[in-house]
């Protein structure tokens, strides 16, 4: 929008960001993006994963520094170089990944940013306890404020995170996918919180890719795609289709190419009455060669726990797992891999990448024995194989020696997927395969998963992304509270049915 106009309106605006750009090694995260928030209004920020939503708010929060562009609050231009700058300016961000100190009590976490202190400068613990309790009563959320935060289930931690927004005198509250791990009635509480905020004249930036929520709570919607600003319109002017159109930029089915034929009836993976001490209860299912089995569930439903159990990463307390008819010793990844099952973890940095090490080393890790004679690695063969995967998967890297930390999320994910293909597995478990990667790469990953299946692998996919689930899966199993609550065929499944089952 024209700058002079912006300036003229400035006083009315809570926040104005113009011409914001940000690059990371190998990817342009934001390109000349602008955003305007009005006091007392809810402004939705939408876009697929990797569209640039998170980057934008992290700039706002002072986590990243923008490469260019200006930020105005109440018309005055400001610089945000450190989170404390944002907080001083009354910008409160509720992040998707929990930003709480696990060792502290819930009450203390609420006041983490500004401990109430007495005249002597001592922390007023009683005040903290009292106000925290009062706060949760106000929004009608029942949680033990003296509990160790780390001991709470994820969804409750998320609510604590959200409640913090009320505890501070904020002028702008940003919420990044706040509902991702919430049960519907918790979402209800969330909206209650948001309305309370707006009634106090606070501007709310609501980041989400869930249409229904946006239509319910937002006044205005800004859509980003591939780091670019696509549209900003009052919600009234939008329909489901127009929004999706803006977000994805093409019709949904084209995002999910489906070349593969029907699944064979050879059972590649069978899980019987699997339970773990922590979470899972009596899980049984099978996956056939050439089939994509999609697991859906809200955060904390036990998807990741299941994924880690069936690849032998976590110990199990009961039940059995067999791959290609062979029984797997629980809690032993080595036999699991040699039997032909592997996991593409949701936590790329934590459980997938060796950030400092080169692409080739990351790529060949699981298949290394195949290039070795008497333990000696034939490096030319290793590199040749790696190169062929880099080409086939169109992995964008300047060289095989490139430390993988310098690749974009999408390319990193492709390397990790290639790691398993190189090993030649029969069953591959993918957990949130497209988390935090941009749309282009996303469809490539989808294509790869489809190819895996068509090449006769059994794919077990854990996801919280409805389109991805519906688009890719042959069968859909829904989890809640560590159990499988429903099972649908591709044809039966609809967004509503699946959600209801997930709420359990």
């Amino acid at each position, binding site marked *: 929008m024209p700058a002079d106009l912006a300036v003229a309106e400035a006083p009315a605006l809570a926040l104005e960001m113009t011409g914001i750009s940000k690059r990371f090694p190998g990817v342009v995260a934001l390109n000349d993006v602008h955003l305007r928030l009005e006091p007392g209004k809810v402004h939705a920020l939408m876009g697929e994963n990797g569209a640039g939503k998170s980057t934008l708010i992290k700039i706002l929060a002072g986590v990243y520094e923008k490469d260019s562009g200006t930020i105005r609050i109440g018309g005055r231009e400001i610089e945000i170089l450190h989170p404390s700058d944002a907080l001083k300016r009354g910008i409160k961000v509720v992040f998707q990944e929990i930003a709480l100190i696990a060792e502290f009590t819930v009450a203390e976490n609420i006041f983490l940013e500004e401990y109430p202190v007495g005249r002597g400068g001592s922390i007023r613990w009683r005040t903290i306890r009292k106000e925290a309790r009062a706060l949760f009563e106000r929004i009608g959320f029942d949680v033990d404020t003296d509990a160790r935060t780390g001991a709470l289930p994820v969804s409750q931690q998320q609510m604590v995170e959200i409640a913090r927004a009320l505890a501070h005198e904020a002028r702008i509250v940003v919420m990044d996918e706040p509902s991702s791990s919430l049960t519907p009635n918790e979402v209800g509480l969330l909206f209650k919180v948001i309305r309370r905020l707006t009634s106090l004249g606070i501007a709310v930036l609501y980041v989400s890719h869930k249409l229904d929520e946006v239509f319910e709570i937002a006044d205005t919607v800004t859509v980003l795609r591939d780091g670019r600003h696509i549209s900003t319109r009052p919600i009234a002017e939008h329909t489901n289709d127009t929004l999706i159109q803006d977000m994805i930029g093409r019709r949904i089915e084209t995002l999910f190419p489906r070349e593969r034929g029907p699944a064979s009836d050879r059972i590649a993976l069978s899980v019987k009455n699997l339970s773990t001490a922590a979470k899972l209860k009596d899980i049984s299912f099978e996956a056939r060669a050439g089939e994509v089995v999609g697991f859906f569930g809200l955060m904390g439903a036990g998807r990741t726990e299941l994924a880690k159990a069936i690849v032998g990463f976590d110990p199990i307390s009961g039940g059995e797992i067999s791959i290609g008819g062979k029984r797997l010793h629980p809690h032993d990844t080595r036999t699991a891999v040699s039997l032909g099952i592997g996991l593409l973890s949701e936590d790329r940095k934590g459980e997938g990448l*060796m950030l400092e090490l080169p692409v080739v080393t990351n790529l060949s890790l699981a298949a290394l024995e195949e290039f070795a004679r008497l333990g000696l690695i034939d490096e030319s063969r290793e590199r040749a194989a790696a190169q062929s995967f880099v080409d086939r998967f169109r992995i964008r890297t300047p060289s095989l020696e490139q*430390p993988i930390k310098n690749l974009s999320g999408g390319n990193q994910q492709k390397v990790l997927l290639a790691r398993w293909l190189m090993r030649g597995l029969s069953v591959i478990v993918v957990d949130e395969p497209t988390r935090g990667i941009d749309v282009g790469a996303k469809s490539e990953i989808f294509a790869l998963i489809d190819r895996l299946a068509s090449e006769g692998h059994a794919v077990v996919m854990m996801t919280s992304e409805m389109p991805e689930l519906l688009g890719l899966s042959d069968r859909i199993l829904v989890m809640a509270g560590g159990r499988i609550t429903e099972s649908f065929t591709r044809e039966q499944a609809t967004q509503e049915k699946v959600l209801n089952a997930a709420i359990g």
Partner: protein
Amino acid sequence: MVSEVSHPAGPGNAIGRLANNSQIVLIAVLVILCVGVSLAEPQFYSGANVIAILRQAALVMIVGAGMTMLLITAEVDLSVGASLAFVGVVAMDVINITNSVAIGSLAGIAFGGLVGLVNGFVVTRLKVNSLIATIGTMMILQGSVFLYSREAVQNHHHLAAFVDIGAGYVGPLPIPVIVAALFFAVAYVLLRHTTLGRYLYAIGANQKAARLSGIRAERLKLFAFVVTGLLVGVAGLVLVSLMNAGQPTAGRGFELTVVAAVILGGTSLAGGRGTLLGTLLGVLVLKVIDNAIILLQWNQDLQMIVPGVVLILATYLDLAKRRANAR
């Protein structure tokens, strides 16, 4: 931006490349040291002195090879000094009893391996932070060595073979240097060209990822501890032979020398980074400094100060370089 980081690299040098940048500094330092010292004190290049330096370096290098593996897997062993002394005492004692260098040597090396096994067990099974665990075992060894023998175990039957371990020569080369070279070569190949070595890096870089890829991280760490222990056994033999007696008081501060050398060589305490070549350079730099201070007849207290400063400086340079690369 991305291209800045990519260096041309021959096949397989992938991991090597990462460390190489940090080694240029060391090579430079080493060269400057040698030139500087030999200008001030020509004796520096006398064959005798070079051999003296090499023999001292050998002792540290032997253990350094194991310590490098440990640090690459993000663990550390501070008990090597105490263990070094104990190995000597045990070996000397067994040799006196059995009158056989072979058996005595085996006993010493076995003892070292046992210590490594215990350390490895405490760290991988009991999950005790290796820094604390090995400080604990260090105390235990320092105490129990005196319980084993209060006074130095003397060399009763002077067996030629025993003396040779430390003081012997093959041609112009002292045996300890040859031994060190041997272990260096083996460890080098192991770290650089074998699956095992690659897995050690993987574990240090990201243990969970390694496990998910079917690597038995805990076992390999245990392996690294045992290897280090065995190498301490070998070094202990060399030392006991050189001293011609099992000295319970030997090895004080040896662990710090070794760790310092390895870190100086660009191996990161965080794991996943480091090379044996770097360790070799680190050892040489430290030992040349040590030697130079004596040759120049400087106050030997500098032998404590200089390494301290060098260590911090080297780590800083390495850090700075990697930050530059990350930009």
